[in-house]
């Protein structure tokens, strides 16, 4: 089970990065990166998962006493939230860049941005 999650996560990452490195259209690159980010998040959650346990929310179903034995690791869940938000932020930023580049250069082709080199 964990392995499936992790493997999918890694595959997503690879696919995402591959796309980001081969697609020359900036928007496609951004999408590819979000894909990769999703993969990362999947990996994080997958790490936190423990077979046959439930969400780390204490209520009548999961009394405080036996929490330690009933719930999965809460920390990765907390981390993934942060990771997601940061991913969103960067994506927004990249979109803004894309827009600006488009307005200034009239194209979204990354290979066209080569003024600076060497």
């Amino acid at each position, binding site marked *: 089970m964990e392995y499936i999650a992790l493997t999918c996560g890694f595959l997503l990452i690879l696919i995402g990065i591959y796309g980001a490195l081969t697609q020359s259209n900036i928007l496609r690159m951004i999408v590819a*990166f979000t894909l990769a980010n999703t993969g990362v998040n999947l990996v994080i959650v997958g790490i936190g998962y423990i077979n046959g346990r439930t969400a780390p929310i204490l209520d009548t179903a999961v009394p405080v006493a036996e929490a330690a034995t009933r719930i999965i690791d809460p920390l990765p869940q907390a981390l993934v939230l942060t990771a997601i938000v940061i991913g969103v932020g960067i994506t927004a930023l990249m979109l803004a*860049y894309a827009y600006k580049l488009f307005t200034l250069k009239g194209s979204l082709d990354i290979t066209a941005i080569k003024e*600076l080199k060497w």
Partner: protein
Amino acid sequence: MVDPILLIAIPLGAAFFLGLLRDEWRTSAYVITLLTLAFVSWVSSSWLLGFSLDKIAPVEILTAGSEPPFSINLRMGLNESVALLMISLTGLLSSIYLKDTLFRLGRRAMAVLLVFVMAMCGIVLTRDIFNLFVFIELTVIATAGLVLLSHNTLSLGAGFKYLVASQIASILLLVGIIFSYHVTGTLNIDGMAGMSNVLIQTSPLAFFLLFIALVIELKPFPANGWALDIYESAHPAFSAILSAATATASLFAVDKILNIGGDNWLPFATGIGILSFIGANLFALAQTHDRRLMGYSSVGQIGLILIIIGQRDILGENYFFIAGGVLLAHAVAKAGLFWMSGLVNARELSAWTALRKRPMLIFAFVSFIALLIGLPPFPGFYAKWELVHVLASEGRIALIVLILFGALLETAYLFRWFGLILRHEDEAPVVACPSQKVAVIYSAVLLGWGLGYIWGELSGFGNLLYTIPLLFALLFLPLEWLPAKLKNTFAIMGLVTWFIVQYPAYDPLQLIFAAIILPGGALVLLASYYNSGRRIGFYPSALWMFAGLSMLIMAEDSFAFFAAWESLTIGSYFLILRGKQSQPHALSYILFSLGGAFLMLLGFALASEGNPLFPLTSLASVASDLAPWVFILLAIAFMTKTAAIGVHIWLPGAHAEAETDVSPLLSGILLKAGLFGLFVLLINMGKQQLYGVELTHVLLWIGAISALLGNMMAIYQEDAKRLLAYSSIAQMGYALFGLALMNHLGWLMALMFVVNHYIYKSMLFLSIGGVAKRTGTKAMYRMGGLITLMPLSFIAVLIGIIAVSGVPPLSGFGGRWIFYNAIMSAEYRLPMVIIFLAGPIAFLYLFRLIHTVFLGQLKDEHRQLKEAPFWIILPQMIYVAFLMIFALAPGLALQKVDGYISRFFPNNGLNWEGLTITSDFGYWSPVSIMIIIGVIFVTLFSWLLFVNRRAQKVKQFNIVYAAERPYRPETTHFAWNFFAPYRKALGFMTQPLVTRFWDTVAELLHTAADLLRRLYTGDGQTYAVQLLAFVVAVYFLGNGVM
């Protein structure tokens, strides 16, 4: 103490608060920004003071009222406080610098700036790895935002490339974090470090990903195309932050992370560091774009610090002293340079000539590059010294060599840049300098010098800024506004006073050199009185050189010696650079000298086996397997100064193109530093053998060949000062030869050359300089017949050449006589042959000098010339007097030294009784020679006067000239290519092979740089590919560890 959490909370609050302000209230927003940054700086500095003065213990800051590792905690310690201060100050100064831009962009930009600084503080403070990630992402986003400050397409493109790269980095980092967490069960860095061995055993890759991701944040070569684009395109003030503050923070992060990895990951850091340091500096050679060049240099510097981090297992408690020294020096210097680049309009290096008219800015620039290269008295200098010694003690010689090589590359392009600024032919118009920007730059300069002082205090070697000579030299900086004549008086007084003060402390050997350096220097400086105006820059440089020289001869230990050596090198470099055409020569001079200095550094480090305060006298007791190598290294280092053949190519240009009163300083005085070094070396190490080869024998050959080829090349020069310069090479060759003879008279002869060469070479350079000043040319064939117009200069030259050629009765003969007696008891005879050949050749160029300049046909355009200026003639006449005295009574100078040398070579000294000086083989009576020759000469002269009283003076062209009458001096003056037959016969011996060799080396380096740097195609995806390729490469290389 204020709670360090405020370092995060306050800027954040301020950033949020800025959102409340109306867009129009820019001023208030700006004030708030400044206040916040000032507050942050104040807090960190107060902590710094607390740690350094009151020695309070580092504090842990808990959040959420619970203990780590379950909640995030921060740590504030000495190093943290230093880094924080660095970061916040950079932020503060940059935002002052950015005033106009920030006003244009409004409060949002200011908020971003605040968050940026906050995030970097967070990176430094936090002890939680995921929190570290968050702060890193904050810096990334803030960076991407601030890149937009310089609003052009270029920076947009750069920013996007940067985002792409950092996306990949953050993916790797996250994966690394989560797996490390999985293994260790904690996110706390110290907690992970506690379980380091578990982590490294079960899942080393997790750590690898952490490590590599953070390293990528350091923009290592070659995975750093995006970074360079940012440096190139971003607003300079922001590049300053990026290069100074961000680098500091990221290095801090890497340092933290390596706590987790443990020592067997240090080699990775080292390797990556070396690659970055050398690669980046190599590429910078081919740069013409100033900001990109600085970007490369930043990458290089960070590489250097990464190397140091990689050595921390052996550095021990010096680790922070060394790393901090290099890091802070780099931060201050690079920030300052970036800020300066904001004052320059165009982006080519040559555009910086705009600074030429601003001495203060030039001084700032000099301070910055000195900080970068690590010249005394700046922190990098102490740090490098310490580092190299530790490395040597651990036997990591290869690493030292690589580091020094990279440093030399860096020197090359930085000093070439400086040379361009001062000496590039077309000068850019002076630019307007807004006061707040200039103030920011000057504060950086102050910071740099302050750091120099602090590091001097921290180093156990004694603070260079306490040494009186250097202080005296520095004193002339504030005095620059005074007229040159006044400053000259101060300088002369200073030199003489120092000599008198030190006099009791000198032993005879030191005394000889001191007498040449201090009173001798003062004597040369007399000539400087002819300069009117302020002569900005001359006196600080000259006195810096003198300071170095006077410290050199008094140096007790290796550090003092090395520091003095580098000081005199720098000072003389600035002197040389003052010449109109001397930019390339000054560059090659500084390169050879610093190259030599680095060899010396290596030599001392080897010899001392890690003891940074190594008494020179214990060179005698170096381990026998090391000794020959030490000997070689030091010998080469000193011979670069004496311009022995092979490393001589800097000398002719440097001496010939220098100003009239500088040439004697360089030739007469500076060259002696190398000889003094050789004396010290031979006194302490004596003869050394390597694979059965007697090294002093090799020196013997080098000296002989230098003497021969120096003279040979002097023959063919058309430029009078070049001729003299080459003759200096030969003369130093003689001295080296004498030293290498390793017997009593050999050394005596060397000392005799020291004195003689100072006197007559200074004299000749002055008189020729005076002539060149009047005629406006240095080409001898354009002069001629000046004897009647410049009789005093002629007399000086006449006496000079008689002394040089060693014709009795003048003092040069004494040198030759001692020389013959010396070789009588020498065991090697072949090199003598070469010396014998060299001897008479001197006559050729000497006669050519005096004939083509003063005799022969006077040119029409020179008929109105006057004698050289009084102040240039005066020292010459004094020298003439000296030569006479020295010729009559050489014992005055030599007798004591002769006794002194007997300490080392008790046998076959000279006997000074009566008028006749006798050796084991021959005798010589200066006085009677002088009298006899005088009597004969006078008798014959009066006889001629008697029989030839009716002789009448005739005009220039009244000569027996086959069949026709000459009418133009140019056609009648035989001067060009004077020794054509000689060139036909022996010209093949003076092929410029050495020059060609060094040219090829430089050429190769540049071509390599120019080809390899095309790796940076400018395509963001290619950069990303390179980045990942880098990661994968490191992974496969490091498979052993993982």
